[in-house]
């Protein structure tokens, strides 16, 4: 049998613990993030895997032949 009052007290204690932790991290100060002086480059090439390139190669060759005026 659980005592509803005991359960309530446990929750209260846990709540206090959380409050202490939040307080402690606030005391620890701000986290500083330096902005990089170089522009951030996102390399889209990571999404291009060699196996995909090999799969598309024949189709791309055909495309170039059939649209020679734009290539």
């Amino acid at each position, binding site marked *: 049998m659980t005592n509803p009052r005991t359960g309530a007290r446990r929750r209260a204690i846990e709540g206090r613990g959380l409050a202490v932790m939040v307080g402690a991290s606030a005391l620890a100060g701000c986290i500083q993030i330096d902005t990089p002086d170089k522009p951030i480059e996102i390399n889209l*090439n990571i999404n291009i895997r060699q196996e995909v390139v090999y799969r598309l190669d024949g189709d791309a060759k055909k495309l170039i032949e059939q649209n020679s005026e734009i290539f």
Partner: protein
Amino acid sequence: MRVKIGKPAGWALGAVAATAAVALLVPSAMAQRDPAYAAARSAGQIGEQPDGYLGFVTTPTPEVRALVQDLNIKRKATYTERAKATGSTVEQYAFTTGCNLIAKTAPGEKYQSPDGRWLTRDASAPVRDSRCP
């Protein structure tokens, strides 16, 4: 551009075009490069990039800039169409085409190496991305 062709050749071309038309926005088969484009290419003012598009090697004239932008828009349209048909992304398809376009550059033409330098194609194999077939 208008090309006069005989009927049987027209039918044959029609069949090719019909197949291509499903996939391509510009089904003008066997068309030649615009003379201004060909000239800018052979003069080394513009070159092929690894991403499948044309780039400026030197500061372009307004005419060359407009011409390249137009070609790149058309290229992107065809890449988008084929990417959809092949279940790939536009970047993947464009990159694969770029591998081929750099391989096809003629000696004297410019292309961009994977590290971004503009190189002049010579008789040897071009410097391409390691993922190129």
